[in-house]
């Protein structure tokens, strides 16, 4: 989990504002969303407003940011975590200056969920869901899928985005190379490294 210090620095980074706002360009919260985050309330008050009809459109934002970060995480958990983070931070810091603050909080929520998954033991409380749900219909083992996803989420961003471009978004090698700003050969190498790492992690889990 990020500390309050890292949260604040992440949320206030000027450079992050520009980048994140641009990255989340298609997403728009409801008009007047800042009024929902006025200071002086308890987090419960803020949550009550945020959970009615999703005025911040956090579900859409979480989907966009998970895809942008090239990670395999449960979007529902990211939304829950994001709601809690926003309610907590808003009662401390007051309404944010602009939308990029929300984007930064959702990004931090994704990091939180990834860290929680990594810290939890394979037999822990998050073991079955949502990996079992995803794995069963296609004949995979839920635990193995979880181990693979945890391993993938810990890989460097350049490897994750290369894998995502080729195997999730199903782009051609050339298109993936353009998206990743590198050569097709390098994209293939990066994706291969991520794939090998996942397979090794699953193999270790099987042998354990």
């Amino acid at each position, binding site marked *: 989990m990020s500390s309050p*210090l890292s949260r604040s620095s992440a949320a206030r980074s000027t450079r992050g504002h520009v980048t994140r706002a641009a990255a989340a360009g298609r997403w728009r919260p409801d008009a007047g969303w800042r009024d929902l985050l006025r200071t002086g309330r*308890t*987090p419960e008050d803020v949550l009550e407003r945020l959970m009615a009809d999703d005025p911040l459109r956090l579900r859409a934002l979480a989907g966009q940011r998970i895809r942008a970060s090239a990670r395999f995480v449960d979007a529902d958990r990211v939304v829950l975590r994001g709601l*809690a983070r926003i309610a907590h931070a808003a009662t401390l810091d007051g309404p944010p200056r602009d939308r990029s603050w929300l984007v930064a909080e959702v990004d931090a929520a994704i990091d939180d969920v990834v860290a929680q998954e*990594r*810290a939890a*033991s394979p037999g822990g409380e998050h073991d079955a869901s949502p990996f079992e749900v995803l794995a069963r219909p296609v004949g995979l083992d839920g635990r193995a899928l979880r181990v693979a996803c945890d391993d993938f989420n810990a890989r460097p961003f350049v490897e994750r985005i290369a894998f995502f471009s080729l195997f999730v978004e199903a782009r051609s090698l050339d298109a993936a190379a353009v998206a990743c700003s590198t050569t097709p050969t390098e994209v293939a190498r990066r994706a291969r490294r991520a794939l090998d790492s996942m397979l090794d992690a699953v193999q270790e889990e099987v042998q354990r």
Partner: protein
Amino acid sequence: MSRSRAHGGVTGGGPCGGAEAPETDRPVATWLALLEAPVDPVGVRRWLDDTLRLAATERGEHARSAAEAPLLVDVYRELEAIERHERAELLRGCARMLARSVPRTLGAAALDLLAPFGPHADRQIHRGLACETERRVSERLLRAAVAPPLDIAALDPCADGGAEEIIKGLARLALALERGTGISSDADGRLAVLEVRLALGDPAAALAGLDDLADELRASKADATVALDAVERARAAAAFAVGDDATVLDLLGSGELAFDRSASAGAMHAAARHRFLGPASGAEGTDRDDCFLAPVGSEERGRVARFLAARSPRPIDGPVDGPIDGPGDGRGQRA
């Protein structure tokens, strides 16, 4: 000071206000003064009381006390986790600042080198305290704390036992708060206490405790990589404080820390001893200008260089983050 006088009861109301800090706020005012934190002690006292309530409440009760719907319980559980973690981080930050400000020990120097608190970090802690203490008390927390199941008698962070007791109280409270379980069963909390012990001038005891903790984490079946990294980092600090250069180099060479192997742990050791023990005790000092600079991209070595530059009797010209290609002990060499 008794517990009941210090807190006005765990679940029974907050402190008194007033122009002069009442007796219940004096310990808080004392440690705020040591932190040089311009924060209202009455507000901090109230925040500490809430934090004690939260620590005394079983994990999850806070969320369940307003359980109208499963989704609400889930999101309140996340909120509770964030509140516990951030309060604990703030308490640990305060404990470490206090440990650094009160006794000038070699252990504190070691922590300074590995996880320093500069003016920027200090200000963030001050700001965190100010923000947290301006919040309204959570009704959900008050409802959940009707029957605290945890004995919190040992958690008083403001007992009149001197700075050391206050620091230990903060560290213990942080531990109980985050896990909602026993005080000595959690790696994070044990690590916090051991770090405080290190900073308070008992690095040998801290190192022994850290060795035990590292062994336990390795033997555990759970994935303890993150916790083990933090323990190894603290072990390096403790080994540095006791002058065990071989262990320091071994730990730093294999871990994420980027101290160059050409840097002499002995030089750091001597410098820290000179800065923290020498002036205080009149002994154990060194007249050498132990000095080495950081290789490009090494934040830790830049930190060490700045630390040494700060204690150097003569100004060091040029950027402290510049490269160095010095000999093994790194003394007096500059690129």
